[in-house]
């Protein structure tokens, strides 16, 4: 998916030149491969830097590497969603009767 094979016609849309055609192809292919590798290396390095902070896991149960990474990955999204929800509730509560508010409080206690 990432490494799209170079098409028969070069990017400029001109017909392939008789001479040096294979060199151009290889060149494009190599460039694209290196670019992809670089992106992958940088992103892996970023993840590694993010993970290799000063702390280590102290849990007596195995929290699961995947579960740990997943929480880190969704952290910002979860925080944003939660913030929106809290503010939305506040806005909504302005327009709500005290009876409804009481009901909601009771529900959240369950």
């Amino acid at each position, binding site marked *: 998916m990432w490494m799209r094979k170079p098409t028969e016609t070069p990017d400029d849309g001109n017909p392939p030149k008789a001479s040096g055609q294979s060199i151009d192809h290889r060149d494009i292919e190599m460039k694209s491969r290196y670019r992809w590798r670089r992106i992958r290396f940088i992103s892996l390095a970023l993840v590694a830097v993010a993970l290799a902070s000063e702390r280590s896991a102290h849990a007596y149960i195995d*929290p699961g590497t*995947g579960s*740990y990474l997943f*929480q880190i990955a969704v952290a910002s999204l979860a925080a944003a969603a*939660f913030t929106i929800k809290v503010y939305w509730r506040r806005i909504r509560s302005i327009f709500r009767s005290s009876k409804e508010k009481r009901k909601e409080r009771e529900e959240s206690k369950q």
Partner: protein
Amino acid sequence: MSVPEGRDYGSFRDPAGHVFKRDGTLFRQVNSVYKAHYERLMSSGLYDRLASDGLLIPHAETDDVEADSDKSFKVLRPKQVPFISYPYEWSFSQLHDAALLTLRVQETALRFDMSLKDATAFNVQFLGGKPVLIDTLSFEIVRPGEPWPAYRQFCRHFLAPLALTSMVNAGLGRLARLHLDGIPLDLTARLLPLRARLRPSLLSHIFLHARFETWAEKRSSRIPREKGGSVSERARLGILDSLRSSVRGMQSTPIRTVWSEYYRNSRYSAEAFHEKQRIVREFLDQCPADKPVWDLGANIGLFSRMASQGNRLTLSLDSDPEAVDQNYRITKAEGAGNVLPLLVDLLNPSPSIGWNGRERKSIFDRIRPDATVLALALIHHLAIGQNLDFQKLAKFFRRLGGHLIVEFVPKEDSQVRRMLRFRDDIFKDYHEDHFRREFEREFTILKKRSVGDTGRLLYLMQAGIP
């Protein structure tokens, strides 16, 4: 055996402490390594809040009991739970309530800068009809920025079985018996229907989470051992809130199973049914009030609730998930706290399993064998439905109880006729005389009553022969 006498076989994972029994009382030892966390739990006000809200089991510190090992810092005497049940014996609504309890405890703990370090469903028990966290040592001082270490456990122990029972089949909760540390998420993702992916909370906590697990497992050697990353306080609350929405969004299956419709389709006339209730009540009054009751094949627990009156712990067993769920919901609504509905198949009861085959006890080893056994409209299902002869049944009931209230359903009964409609009648010995003869080898018959004009008979028996 390296496990000291009296120490609970299931209590070995957490270095913070363990539970042990002495003279029939359960104690919890707190080890020195957990001192700082325990002191924070007690001094921060978290314990008081959780105990007063009925979320955590209350305890008293005791100096009267010698510690179970030299690692001890303190010994606690928690409020005693009369019967320990396991998550694979709960219906959907029971697990649902246990999940909400766990999330509420975690939410409360975070407000006191503490966090649950584990979230196994085995840490929840039903006391007085309500779920309560029993592991006092489950809390730790929160480490800022660190992801919730119990997140995976919560998803496997609660979210996975809840999603499977509500969206696939009510009986799938039994998978938890196979997977004692929770149902694996990749398995759950494979079993869930396509529409489960449409729910954002399930999509993330089950499907994407499972993908991450698989991804990380394949690359485990390349991921640095030192883990940390950063999960802000708000993100932690966000994940918790999302988990709660996910749990709340799940409903028990609306499909009516055979047994939950049983009373509605019962062939009992109203008068005969009232007569049966009257006789059972009379018999129950003659059974010891301080002994628990096993209601076997309890259906939606009508007779269990009757038996539980007068503060009698009643274990209300049935093999039908929907019936058990209804039983729990009715019991909860009526506040019949002494009834504990349990999903147990008598033909395949919860065995002794886990580490060394002893971590989780067999259901029959969790209670003293002197209970009162209620076996109403059950005999014919076991004798004719499962080819179990009266001798085996009498011995089985004798193993459980000191008193037995049993209903004999004759062959002429419409239910029995229905069971035999497509089978050869190989049950020549299925008649009252033989029933009496075999049961009198184990029990003394105290009383016998016939239930109206149904032809059914109710017996009150006591263990032992004169």
